[in-house]
């Protein structure tokens, strides 16, 4: 089961997904009616002319979440190989996990203390 061919269907599926989407969208462009007007092409802002721009700086807390996600999710993904062979690792694996997770938890409490998880 470790052959590369097994990933071939996935590539095909990407193509199929893109193909379905493109064909349907093309079809819709072909048979859908099209009328353009200045007002219609305006972005929707509850029925009044939009004010200002949408390209604003986004509050930093969103990036904070993204960074924390990368830290935690990658750590969790690191645990997957460990989980697969955990049965054969025995006590050693258990202790190793403890150390690993302990470091992670320390980090968690650190960011908790720093207030990185405070949303307001």
């Amino acid at each position, binding site marked *: 089961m470790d052959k590369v061919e097994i990933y071939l269907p996935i590539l095909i599926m990407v193509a199929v997904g893109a193909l379905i989407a493109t064909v349907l969208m093309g079809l819709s462009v072909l048979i*859908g009616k099209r009328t353009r007007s200045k007002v219609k*092409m305006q972005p929707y802002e509850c029925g009044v002319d939009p004010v200002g721009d949408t390209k604003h700086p986004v509050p930093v807390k969103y990036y904070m*979440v993204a960074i924390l996600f990368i830290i935690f*999710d990658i750590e969790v*993904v690191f645990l997957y190989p460990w989980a697969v062979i955990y049965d054969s690792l025995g006590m050693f694996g258990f202790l190793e996990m403890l150390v690993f997770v302990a470091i992670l938890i320390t980090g968690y409490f650190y960011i908790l203390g720093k207030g990185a998880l405070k*949303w*307001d």
Partner: protein
Amino acid sequence: MLDFLFGQLVATHATFDVVTLSDRTTQALAEDPWLAAGYALLGLAGVGGFLSLLGMALIYVERKVAAHFQCRLGPMRVGWHGMLQSVADAIKLLLKEDIIPDRADRVLFLIAPVFSIIATTLGLILIPMSPSLQVVDLNIGVIFISAVSSFGVLGILLAGWSSNNKWSLLGAMRAGAQFISYEISVTLSLLVVTLFAGSLQLSEIVQSQQDGWWIWRGHIVGLVAFFVFLIASTAELNRPPFDLPEAESELTGGFHTEYSGLRFSFFFLAEFINMFIASALAATLFLGGWMPFHIGGLHTFNGLMDLIPPGLWFAGKTTFIIFLIMWVRWTFPRLRVDQLMRLEWKFLLPVGFINLFAAATLVITKLYFFPW
């Protein structure tokens, strides 16, 4: 007497052979290329048809379920009990005008829904629906599914960002923060099952539940992991009470405010298929997938259960979880964005880690239920 009759059945069902479509194709490739091509085409047509049919069916079911929760009938006009309503809607959406707002990022705006659809398709092909119905059986199935589901977020983020609409922008920011946060909890709860099963391959995880579904066998750990998974994946599905990126009554549609016609329907379709994938995944990992329901020692009962084909078991379990998700949707109010974050980072995440620790202890002490 009954034992005698059904004992035979139990014996024949003792092992299930897993033959996926890709296996068949590779086997056939050596013998008969035409047969291989046939299998491949079958797979493609199957997935394409399955995708759209499933999407329409789920939308119909959602509308009917919602209607009956709300003491009304729902669609009744198109076809018997409105069965063809989704088809009519699909045709309508196809005929709708395709609008790209001014000053939108055209390229990103165009490809965002395609991203969503591709991610959905990729998730779908991994689900083992019965011993013989699985398109691809990857050896890293669990990781692959979580990777793909993160990919789907990209579509939503891009859609919101490229629309040049403030509501969409707010929706996209919410979506980004929400989905990646809950992704951690999903991954953590999947890790628990991986730990139990010792494999990442979905078919093997199903096989590992021969002696009992992980939701029972793992004592409370399995149950906790199941519920964490359910909550976190509801959040990732962007469904109420976690539908903040869309939040119709706050953001007028959120990330898809500017989308119309077919491209809007792609997001819709992706959302519903993703609901199926999440439910199917929960059924596969926690509820034994296509494994029949067995109670240790009761051979007659188990034999009777074996009579029901595995495909139906899978469908039944998945339907049950889909119904759960819908039930929640039509009952609860929506969370606020800070509460959503608090729920994940201050509740689900610690619970997930503690649960993982408990699971590791369980495995090392071999304290399963159903030890026979």
